Each structure stands twice: as C-alpha cells, then as structure tokens.
C-alpha cells in the first residue's frame, strides 16, 4: 500500500477515534466541520474543477436542510433513509433549474446571477410562510435511522451521528475522486482550462456545466441535510451570502482544484475562526485580515503552498544530483 493511502487511512482512523477522546461540545464541532467539508468539496467541483465561480452555492445547502425540516412530520420522527435521498434530490433539482438558466452566462455576470438566485431562495425562506420565517424551523424529533426492523444506528447518540457524518464525508470524497477520473470529470477540467477548445472539439459545454452544477448542488444538499439532522434546527441564514462567501474562502484556503481541498479548507477555516475567537471578541478583524493576506500571498491555498514548497525542494535535490552525476561521469571517463 502506498504511503499516501496509508496516511489517508490513518487520518480517517484518527477522525473516527476522536469521539472517544473529545468532549461532547467538540464532537459536535468537528461534526460541523466535516459537514462544511462536504459543502466545500461540492463547491470546489464547480470552482476548482469546472472553473465556475458560484456565489450562491449556499442556496442548495439550505434547501437540503430545509427539505428535512419540512418533510419531518410535526408529531413524529422522520425516517432518515426516506428523507435523505429526497432532500438531496430537492437540492439537485433546484440546482438543475437554476443551472439551466445561468449556465450560458459568462464571467462576472455568472457570479452575480448565482448570487441573485441564492438571495431569492433566502427571501423565500425568510419572508414567506413556507418555513418559520426569520426565526427558522425547529424539528420536534430527530429522524430515525430505521430500515425495516433494523435500527441501523441511533440518531440521538451524538457519537453515532458523528460517525455517520464521517462516513458521508469519506463517501463524498471518494465519489468525487472517481468522478474526476471519469470522462465527465476530464471534460469538466477541459472546460476550465480552455472552453473554446472544448467547444471546437464538439463538446456541448453548457450541458457539461449543467451536469457539474447539478451534482454540486445535490452534494451541497447532502451537507445541509446532515446539518439539520445534527442540530435539529434550520433557519434562513444557512442561505445567506455570507455562507456562500465563507464556502468560497474554504475552497481557496484549501487550494482550489486540488484533491481534498474542501476538507483541508474547511478544517483550516474553522480552526482559524476558533483561534481568533479565543483571542478577542473582535475576531473578525484578524480573520478578515487573514483572508486578505491569504489571497494575496497564497492564492493556491494551503495545498498549493505545500506543492510549491516541495517543488522547490525537489528542484534543489535534482540540481544537487545533477551536479554529482556530472562529476561522476567525468570521473568514469
């Protein structure tokens, strides 16, 4: 087994072991971070892979969350296995509809249009009587993970919830990895690097973009569902443009387009937030400054910085080897 894969397994094992060591507040927190990681990974599919900068991705996150809250009956517990696919579908459907409308829009207009549609979703939940308005909706009961006679796991047990979220995150990462290796994934990367060339090669670019948008929306909906399941509470701020903005920060923090950028980005983002919050009540000041510095100095994100570092190290090693080789060859002569 390669070193990389071993390290992955080690990371997953460490995350899985965490609830046995950490207190309940922190188990919940890390669970939230993993949910954000799924959200960020879904956005990176759009931004990093396809080159579509969406400033309204939180809409699908929120729709996934609200779907659970709305599907849950008032005086009974919903079934997780029944509501989860439906919520993902609802988010994907919303993404499909919006995507169909925006996929032909270019450049900065795309950013603005996606923002506009997210704001529409925000106001639907904030102003109308569909949800609980600005106060949000609270579920009386958590969903039940019942499959026929089997209670697959206990949703009221925070550790089980944590492990379910971890499993979901790993599954999403694997799914994206497989997708990127498929013809669809390669086409999306081609679109990001040169749209015109893809078009001249006969690809229907809007259709591929739409596929990417829809899949990303569905995955974001999954993240939203998990959030609603974990907390039992949804509100319109899940769809606010701050949420969309934060997701973009996570993507660029991780290193857009790189494998696992979403996961790295989410963890670093929350770690930075917690760090600054523990230092001062005015934490948004160093946090905003950190974002600015990051984008200025390290636009490739954490993973990009690492890549640059090891490329520099490898070049240095190669130069040394090359010089040594010349001396050797000279000697052999």
């Amino acid at each position: 087994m390669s070193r990389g894969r071993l390290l992955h397994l080690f990371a997953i094992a460490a995350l899985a072991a965490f609830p046995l060591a950490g207190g309940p507040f922190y188990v919940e927190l890390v669970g939230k971070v993993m949910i954000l990681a799924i959200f960020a990974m879904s956005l990176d599919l759009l931004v990093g892979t396809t080159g579509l900068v969406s400033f309204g991705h939180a809409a699908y996150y929120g729709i996934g969350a609200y779907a659970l809250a709305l599907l849950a009956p008032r005086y009974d517990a919903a079934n997780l296995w029944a509501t989860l696919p439906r919520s993902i579908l609802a988010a994907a459907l919303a993404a499909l509809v919006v995507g169909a409308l925006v996929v032909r829009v270019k450049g900065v207009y795309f950013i603005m249009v996606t923002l506009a549609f997210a704001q529409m979703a925000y106001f639907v939940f904030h102003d109308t009587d569909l949800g609980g308005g600005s106060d949000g909706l609270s579920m009386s009961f958590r969903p039940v993970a019942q499959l026929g006679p089997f209670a697959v796991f206990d949703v009221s047990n925070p550790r089980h919830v944590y492990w379910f979220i971890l499993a979901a995150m790993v599954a999403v990462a694997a799914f994206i990895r497989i997708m990127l290796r498929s013809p669809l994934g390669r086409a999306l990367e081609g679109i990001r690097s040169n749209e015109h060339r893809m078009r001249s090669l006969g690809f229907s670019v809007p259709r591929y973009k739409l596929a990417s948008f829809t899949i990303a929306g569905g995955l974001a909906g999954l993240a939203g569902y998990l959030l609603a399941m974990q907390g039992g509470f949804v509100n319109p701020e899940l769809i606010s443009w701050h949420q969309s903005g934060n997701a973009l920060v996570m993507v660029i923090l991780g290193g857009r387009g790189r494998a696992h950028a979403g996961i790295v980005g989410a963890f670093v983002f929350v770690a930075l937030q917690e760090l600054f919050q523990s230092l001062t009540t005015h934490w948004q000041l160093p946090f905003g400054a950190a974002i600015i510095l990051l984008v200025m100095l390290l636009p490739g994100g954490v993973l990009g910085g690492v890549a640059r570092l090891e490329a520099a190290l490898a070049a240095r090693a190669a130069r040394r080897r090359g010089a040594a080789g010349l001396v050797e060859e000279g000697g052999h002569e």
Partner: protein
Amino acid sequence: MDIASLLIQVLNGVQYGLLLFLVASGLTLVFGVMGIINLAHGSFYMIGAYMAFTLSSLTGNLFLAIALGIVLSIVLGIALEWAFFARLYRRDHLEQVLLTYGLILVFEELRSLVAGNDVHGVAMPQALSGSISLTSVLSYPVYRLFMSGVCLALAGGLYLLIHRSRIGMMIRAGASNREMVQSLGIDIQLVYRVVFGVGVALAAFAGMIAAPVSSVYPGMGTQVLIICFVVVVIGGIGSVWGALAASLLVGLVDTFGRVLLPNAAGLSVYVVMAVVLLWRPEGLFRRAA
C-alpha cells in the same frame, strides 16, 4: 389605494431609488472602468453614516459634518486605491471577491472598535425637520424631499462630469478600452484613482445624508451592498444611466412590493433581477457610461 396614496408611494420609491443611485453609481463605475468587483463598497456607505454620527456630535452641525465627511472620504478612497485596490487589477474575479470580502470583515470590526455596536440616531437639522401636509392624515417630512433634491443634483453633476468634462471623456474611454487609452499616453492610473475616490465619496455621502432618516447601525453596509448589486446588474455594468434607471426601478418595486405583497417583500426585487437577466444577460443598458 387612492390616487393620493399612490402618488405618495411613488414619491417614496423615487426617494429610495435616488439614494440607491448614489451608492450604485460608484459601484458600477469602479467595475466598468477598473474592472474590479468591490464587495466592500457597502462599507463606504456605512462609514459615511458613522462619520455623520460622530462628526455631527462633535461639531453640532450636520451640514458641517457632511462637508468634512466628503473631504475625508475622498482622502480615504484615494488612499485605499493606492494601498490596496491597485493590486487587484491583475487578479481574477474570485480573488477580487474574496479580497474585498475580507475587507468587509475588517471594516465592520474596525467600526465596532471605534464606534461600538449600538444603534444610533443622527439629529436632523432644525431648518429641515418639519413636515408638509399632503393629505388629511398624512404629512411628508421635509428632510426626505431635501434628500431627493440633493441626490438629483448630484446625478446631474455626475452626468456633467462624465459627459462634458475632459476627465469624464477619459473615464468613458477607459471603460470601453483600457489598453487603448494607455497607449494613447493618458495616465490611466490617475483616471482610476479619480474614479475610485469619486465612488467612495458618493457612497459615503449617501450614508451621511441618509443618516438622519435611517438609523446608524451595524450591518447597514452589507444590506445596501446587495441591493446595489442588483441595481448594477439590472442597469448594466459600467453604465451610469443604467444605474439611474435601475435604481429607480428597484426603489419603486421595493416600495410597492412591501405594501402589496408583504409575504414576498424582499423577493420582489430579485424576481425582477432574474427576469431582466434572462432577457438581457448584460443588463438593460449594456456598457455605455
């Protein structure tokens, strides 16, 4: 709704729209001429309002405070452009979005440090604090009429600046073809600095003049920013005419939306935006400064 109330609501909508225009015009100019998407533009509106609050408490006179505030905001705009925004030209849109997003957080927190988090009121000048009776039950505050008048005057001034002055010609040229302007030997850097300074000053002035009728509160910048985005997108990036038309449209839709569709008040403006975008993806007035 009877005719008198209808007309008064139109007046309300136009007044709100004119105020939006001041903020949106700066945003669209910066975008059209400099190619920079600046999320922190709403913060300038907020900075203006807080300046009005602090300066009028210090000097006791709102007009004096506004005059001082204009000078300060022009200085602020030029300083910001030189120190920070000048580095954004070569960045792609995502990076500009994130950089200016970070800037919003910094501004909000600085405001919190300097002026606290309470909601403040700004005293209206005595001379303008009366109301004019319009119907048997309703009067209209004189100050709001004054505000609309000032905004109209500024709109006129902006038109003269852009269409009848030398620097306006450079601005228009820069908006349509940046490289050509530079190769003609015009100092594009100076044009950018002027545009940015004017944009900041306009937004700050809007905040200052609106302060007596809106409260001064945290988050007021981001609220106005999002609406201005809508205005700029509907009107067309880079077009000041477009910004004017779109501001008035948004002002009217928002005002009537609130009373006719209380369940969809916030939604109405975005529905209009979506419709315009689907019909004309680049805005109503395209790129014509």
